[in-house]
């Protein structure tokens, strides 16, 4: 599958990795966990650049935001005490549902984003957390909203740069917040048919002051359901509102039919999972009223 690879490089820094990528002239590929690349194969690949030794494995606070290095594995995220607490642990919980233990020991958060699958399990909680992607290129680093990064990555716009870090701004905390991640897969290790992440904040009277909803596997890239968020904001978080918002989530979804599920089924399930996720958020947030 990789019969034409001429060199396997293990750069010790990002600048070195970028130089190798530049030199590879479109025939070099970045390797982190390798789990997506190994399956995709690559007869055109001549150079493999393993960035797992380039200092990008970390979870740490950096000027008010939590920074996760691109080569941090999903197993490390699942087990991180910091991420198990942050925003009800939705990121750690999403990581725990991604593939099997043996995949999570290899697969990285950077790879999960850079591969730009519509079903990437880490994407929906990161969108709810309003995360940013930090991309390094020969002209320096730039930061862009994750949603934008995912759409651009799906279009193959980062062939000359490397995703180095995910930044999560401090999420709203306190008692009147609730967070949830829901995923539907055919088996425990299958990729998701639909995934929904949500976060809400209530005021003292139980009115929604902030709502974030993200959907996976129902559009070309993981997406925010902004119309559902707007619909909820300023209204009392009761069962009727959840039902209304879940219907709006299903309307916002743009699913396709494929080998795993029909578009109709995905749309219906995004409503079911949406209601479940929002219900869970409200339950958690109401616990603090």
């Amino acid at each position: 599958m990789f019969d034409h690879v001429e060199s396997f490089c293990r750069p010790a820094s990002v600048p070195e990795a970028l130089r190798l990528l530049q030199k590879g002239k479109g025939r070099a590929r970045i390797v982190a966990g390798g789990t997506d690349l190994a399956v995709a194969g690559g007869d055109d690949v001549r150079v493999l650049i393993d960035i797992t030794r380039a200092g990008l494995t970390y979870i740490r606070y950096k000027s008010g935001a939590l920074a996760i290095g691109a080569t941090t594995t999903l197993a490390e995220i699942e087990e991180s005490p910091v991420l198990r607490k942050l925003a009800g642990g939705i990121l750690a919980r999403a990581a725990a549902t991604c593939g099997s233990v043996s995949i999570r020991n290899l697969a990285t958060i950077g790879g999960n984003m850079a591969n730009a699958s519509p079903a990437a399990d880490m994407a929906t909680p990161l969108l709810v957390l309003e995360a940013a992607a930090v991309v390094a290129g020969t002209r320096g680093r730039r930061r862009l909203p994750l949603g934008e990064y995912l759409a651009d990555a799906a279009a193959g716009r980062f062939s000359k740069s490397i995703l180095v870090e995910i930044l999560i701004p401090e999420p709203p905390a306190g008692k009147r917040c609730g967070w949830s991640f829901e995923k539907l897969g055919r088996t425990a290790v299958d990729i998701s048919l639909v995934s929904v992440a949500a976060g809400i904040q209530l005021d003292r009277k139980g009115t929604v002051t902030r709502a974030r909803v993200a959907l996976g596997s129902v559009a070309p890239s993981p997406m925010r359901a902004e119309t559902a968020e707007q619909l909820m904001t300023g209204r009392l978080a009761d069962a009727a509102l959840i039902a209304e918002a879940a219907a709006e989530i299903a309307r916002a979804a743009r699913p396709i039919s494929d080998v795993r599920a029909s578009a109709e089924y995905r749309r219906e399930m995004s409503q079911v999972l949406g209601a479940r996720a929002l219900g869970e958020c409200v339950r958690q947030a109401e616990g603090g009223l």
Partner: protein
Amino acid sequence: MKTMELSLTVNGHARTFAIAPGDLLLDVLRREGYFGVKRGCEKGECGACAVLLDGKPVNSCLMFAAQAEGRQVVTIEGLARNGRLDPLQEAFLDHGAVQCGFCTPGMILSAKALLDHQPDPTEEQVREALAGHFCRCTGYKKPVEAVLAAAAARKTRSRRKPAAEVMQ
């Protein structure tokens, strides 16, 4: 074809292999005679190719061999000590958890990593640890029972040990 050297530890022995830069770890291990590493789906779905990398299970079909440079790999061949099977291997035999045996090496290695990390797992934790391993003949009931029995046996052994020392 270009070749490169790969130096790593396999089953406790320092080894150096000549590999192609694009070789997958699965291909290299089988080429070097570790046939307990099974070639199954080659997509990370069946778990038959699992090995321990620095003590953690990974799918050897999903990683490049060169990624294992300087690291510790354990295959099923590395589990027996001085001709004696690992208690987990014994438990799989005792519980009839092996039929055709194709999935067994991967299952046992994942179970070993689980017990090293969590000596007293719940049934759910065992099922989660084995979720990445497909078995098409025995099913999952007996392997799960075998892992739980091995964990229980390990607990009894470690309780007995200090007592024996006291008596001496």
